[in-house]
Structure formats: C-alpha cells, structure tokens
C-alpha cells in the first residue's frame, strides 16, 4: 500500500448502475416466549421492522443508530446468519432470504462480514495462516501448495507483515487483529463487505489506520461496504450515503454531506447535536438538542411515529392537531422537500454543525 493517494476514484454512482444489494421491507422479529409449561409465543421483539436499503457498486453505505436500534441485526439478516422473518434481500437480482444453507454457501464468497470485536472473532488457538486460510480451504479456491502464498498476499494487502503468518492472535494489537479479520473477509474476493462496527473497539490513533485501510481496499478492489456504526464522525468520514435507524426503522437516508449539513428528521438532528466536537471554542458555543427519556421497548413500540415519545419537535413545537398525525400515522420514508427522504411528517432541514 502506498501512502500517496491517487486521484480520488469516481464513487458517484452512474444513473444506469444497478445496486449490488437490494433490501426491501426486511423484518427480523424475535419471539417472546411465555413462561408456562408450553412456551407459547406471546409477542415479538421487532428488532428490524421493514427497512429498505440499496447498496451500489463501489460505494460505502453507512448505517447508523444507537444501541438496540437493530443495525447489527440488519447486517446479520442480510447475510442470512439470522434468517429474516420477512422481506427480501437480493444480491445481483438473486433472492437470499429463501435460500438454504447449502445454496447460500457459494454466495458467501460474494458477501462477507467483519465483526466488531477483534478479540472475540479470531480463534485464539489458530495461527494467522490458518485463520485467513480457512475460507480458502472451505471453498476449495486454492491448493495446499498455493495457500501460504495467497495468505501472505492477503496479509500484505491489509498492511500486515507476511512474516508473521505463523503467529497467534494474542501476539497482535487490537488494530492488527482487526486487520486479520479483514484479511479473512477478503480471502474469497467478495464484492460486498458488511462491516459491523469495525473500528468501535479500537483506540482513535489505531482506528485511523484501519479506517484508511478500508478506504484503500474499497478503491483498490472495487468493494461495496455496508458500514454499520454508532459513531457518526467515523461514518461521515467513510460513507458516501448514510441511513439513520431508530427502533428498527430507517428514519432518514441521504448523501453524507446532505445528511450532516441539512438533517431533516428530529432524531438525526438530536443525534448530530449530541456528538461532541474536539474543538473547545465551538464546543462551548454549541447548543444541544437534548432528548428526554430512553428508547422505548421494541416489543411494544409507540403507535404512529416511533420517535414521538422522545421527539423535541413533538413535545415543544407542534399543535395538538398536528400531534394527532404523529400518534396515528406511521410516517413513510419519503422526500418532503428537503432533498432527501426522511420519516417525519413535519421534517424540516436544519443546519447544526
């Protein structure tokens, strides 16, 4: 990898580009079982409740939200690691949700995942060679004699020293372990990577290196990323488009700069205003939009708009007549004149940063 960045590749998608991954109405409900002898299902945790996503070739789509909003479950449901309970996921036109394990396997070469915790996602008893080589053996893409060479190539690709291929995970730092996880995901030359909080467990100085690596790999290999994260500063830095999730639903989707410069949904607005900026003078002048209360239970979300129980707009600005609509009608994710879709009946773009 060179330090000099070549001219930024064109990551603006053409009008004719087809999405590689299309998600429509994806649902993942977890049953709540009763406590009796016969454990009947008494309700559902609606972890993901009908979301739509399009991932275009070569782009990074950020999926952000707070803990429990369903962003990680979305990633796993797309990969069929936790089968979706409804909706459709199409990879290059092929439906994934109805596939069984065996027919899913060839597609696993195309879509891979990088997990959050580099301490838990690598087998501590295997040397790096075996960890990164395992997918190559399972999918029979290289012969035994080629394995070492291919693994070394992959280690070099993720900025590690190939001479360390006989080392065990504990000998590496957190950032390096995450690179091993990335090398393993790249082993089968996938087209799509689902990055589930790939840098959240790392210190900032290390995180920056992994973020740069992910950018380089995307541009070099033409990958598409679904970048799941709770840290909006990282998302702003890495993503081309961003979808914001709240309680199992997407509340706003926009191009990155559009979302950060003109957020229209009250939840996005409060999220942005809550993030501290490492700039003392700006930070002292900033006014925060503070949310009250906590996220409601996804087993029993509020009627109508799910955010209304914490919404500062609902609480302070709307008239009772206007509130009726929030209580009774679930706002669809459509453009309400803000240049991008948002799921708020009274969406209004604000400048916050």
């Amino acid at each position: 990898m060179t330090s000099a960045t070549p001219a930024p590749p064109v990551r603006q998608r053409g009008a004719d580009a087809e999405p590689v991954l299309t998600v429509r109405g994806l649902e993942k409900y977890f049953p709540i079982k009763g406590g009796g002898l016969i454990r009947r299902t008494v309700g559902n945790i609606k972890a993901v409740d009908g979301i739509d996503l399009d991932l275009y070739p070569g782009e990074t789509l950020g999926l952000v939200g707070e803990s429990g909003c369903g962003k990680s479950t979305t990633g796993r449901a797309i990969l069929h690691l936790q089968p979706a309970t409804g909706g459709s996921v199409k990879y290059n036109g092929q439906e994934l949700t109805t596939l069984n394990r065996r027919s899913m396997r060839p597609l696993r070469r195309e879509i891979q995942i990088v997990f959050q915790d580099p301490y838990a996602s690598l087998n501590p008893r295997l040397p790096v060679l075996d960890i990164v080589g395992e997918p190559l053996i399972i999918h029979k893409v290289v012969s035994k004699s080629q394995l070492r060479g291919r693994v070394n190539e992959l280690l070099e690709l993720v900025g590690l020293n190939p001479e360390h291929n006989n080392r065990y995970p504990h000998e590496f730092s957190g950032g390096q372990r995450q690179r091993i996880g990335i090398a393993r995901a790249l082993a089968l030359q996938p087209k799509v990577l689902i990055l589930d909080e790939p840098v959240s467990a790392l210190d900032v100085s290390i995180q920056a290196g992994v973020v740069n690596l992910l950018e380089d790999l995307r541009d070099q290999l033409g990958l598409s990323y679904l970048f799941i994260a709770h840290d909006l500063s990282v998302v702003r830095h890495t993503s081309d488009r961003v979808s914001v999730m709240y309680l199992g639903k997407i509340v706003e989707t926009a191009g990155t700069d559009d979302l950060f410069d003109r957020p229209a949904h009250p939840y996005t607005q409060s999220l942005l205003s809550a993030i501290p900026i490492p700039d003392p003078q700006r930070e002292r002048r900033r006014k925060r939009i503070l949310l009250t209360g906590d996220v409601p239970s996804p087993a029993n979300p509020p009627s109508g708009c799910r955010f209304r129980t914490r919404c500062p707009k609902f609480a302070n600005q709307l008239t009772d007549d206007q509130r009726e609509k929030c209580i009774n009608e679930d706002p669809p994710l459509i453009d309400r004149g803000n240049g991008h879709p948002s799921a708020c009946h009274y969406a209004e773009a604000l400048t916050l940063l």
Partner: protein
Amino acid sequence: MATLTDPAADQRRPSADAVLEVEDLNVRFPTDDGIVHAVRGVSFSLRTGEVLGIVGESGSGKSVTSLAVMGLLPSSANITGSVLFRDRQLLGLKDAELSAVRGKSIAMVFQDPMTSLDPVYKIGNQIAETVRQHDKSVSRAAAKARAVDLLKLVGIPNAADRIDSYPHEFSGGMRQRVVIAIAIANQPEVIIADEPTTALDVTVQAQVLEVLKTAQDETGAATVLITHDLGVVAGMVDRVLVMYAGRAVEKGTVDDVFYRPKMPYSIGLLGSMPRIDAGDRQRLTPIKGSPPSLINPPPGCPFGPRCPLHYSKCDEQEPDLYPTERPDHTAACIRVNELVGVDVAAEDIFTDDSSDLTLGAEAAIGESALAQQGVGDAAAVGGVPTEPPPIPGVDPDAHRDHEERA
C-alpha cells in the same frame, strides 16, 4: 487558527487555591512477568471550581491515577508520591480514615453505571445511606427527602416515586444520573469522574454531561474528568492533562492543548480523529505501532518508537515536561523548542498510509535489546536517525539554537 483570548474561557477561570495536589505519583503492580509501572510520576493540582480533563488511550494509566488518589487500588499495588487534599496527605491513610474522606470530600463517578449501584437496594436507600454515613445526625426521613431532592436535581422524573425503584428498573443513563446524585449528596469539594459517559449512547451522553455540569454548578466542586474522548474534553474542561504510557506528556489549558499542541503524541491524537464537522474528508493520520509495555520500559521517550520526529537523542533519557510559549503549557518532548510558535498539524509530520507492520511484543524485545547495546548501536541497528528529522515549516536552524541553549 483561533485567537488567544476567548471570553468564555476567561469566565471559567477558577480561583487560585488548590484543593487537590498530586505530586510525583507512581503506581507499580507486581505481576508474574515483572513489575508493571502503570503510573510514572504524574503531578497535577486542582483548584476550586476548576475542571481538569485527563485524556489518554487505553492503558495510559488515567484510571489507575484516579483510583490511586481515591485509595481504591488493591493492597498489592505499590503507591508512592503525594496526594494532598486541602494540605492533608491521603496516601498512607488507613481505610477507615479514608472512608471518612471518600464520598464526603472527594466523590467518584465510575464508568459503568450497571455495576456501580448495588442491585439489591432501592435507589433512595443508596442515596440516603451516603448522606447518613457521613452525618449521623440526619434523620432517616430527612435523608430520604434529600434523596428526592437530589434525584430531581439530576433530572429524574417523578423523583418521589422513583426512590423506591431498584437499579434494574432504570436505564443506563438514569443509573448514571443516580450515581452522580450519590456523588454530590454530601457537597464534595472534588468530584472524580472516570469515563462517566463511555458506556452510554451519544444522546444519553449529552444528557449525562449536562447533569454533570449541573452537579458542578450546584456543589462548586473541582472536577477531574477522565476520558478517552477528546470531544467530551473539549466542551467540559478548563485544563487538560494528556497521558501516555503512565506519564503526563502534555499539560495546558484546553485551548492551548487543542489549538497549539506541542507534544507529537497530542498532535497525532488530534489528527487521527475523524471530525463530524469536516466535510472535506481529509485523510486521517494514524499513529503507527502500539504503546510500549510498562514492564521494564526502555529509557528515553516512551512515544519515541511511534514518533515521526524521533531521533537518537530521544532515547537517551525520558523527557521532562518542558515549557512552551504559553504560561502553564508544558510538553514532554526534547524538540519542543523547535515547535514553539509554529502550528504543526498532524498531516505535516505523520504519514497517512495504512500499514501496521510491527508486533507489539517484537517492538518491546527489540527496544530493550537495543537499549542494552547502548544508544549509538541502537541507532545503527534499529534505523533510528541520528539527526533530528526536519519538521515542515520549521527552520532547521531552530534546532541548532535549541542545542546551544540545552
């Protein structure tokens, strides 16, 4: 770059008398592999009403520092130095004597609100206990009333009803509010908050930081805010202490450290942060390598192996905190004189490439082996330059200047 005077900063300037003075604090833990020297000569003083931020990455010794001040480290830890609270030495006090100080004069807010409350006692009782523990003359009813007031102060709705709740009935943010209520129950003079919002979501973090500000205003307590999040520090504190490998490597007002950092580590740390307010997507500048092992650290600057300005002289001895052009702003770098008066951004000195080639263990072994051979050899073997690498925008003569002065 910003101007030097900021009215908001001036208003927050505290009075000059120190409540808490930590001098040359050292903490060593014996382990099977050797002695871990987790805190190495940290000094700071905290004045009434002032907020001091201690920042650093995992393992830099920031939490151990606060636990040592509170006397909460296990008895196996070897603590030396001095911790003066209102001129009273806290180090070496018996646990019973310390208990009279803890929770009364110095209070602490811990990182994880899930584990810092007792799950089998009601919230109200836990607050009332703190009040009555330090003042037996308070009646149960009065303590309970005080608990309600405190819960109201930290923004818990229906406080009068909620005092009979158990911790598990509260969310993480609510629990952290309760922990803050307990911390301020006895009007402490010092509050130590150790990563108070790290376990929380951003919107909840914003709420809890607001509560922490209220708590400060209410008690007038001096506060130590320990965090790894430079953003949190920027908005909350008056002065900053940056820690690396158990040492304070830069100290100064928040504006000085953020706008005019002089220690390469602080410069690198600021440059490696993605900014939510940056639309132009400048490439981040990571700091290569990992922090050194604190078992038998090599002589010289602990940041040396990761530092782009590193040369052989850096390995001779560990740098003290040297003064910079601003009063009370010090940085532990022997090249600080070259950096005085120039703004060096992270991208000027750190590279933005994305490899990560050295293993932590190897780096440590290599270091100590080289150190044994003497510095000259180390330079030859380890490829450490014997001449200082130039700093962009800095006249190389400045270096010679510095040499002469030294």
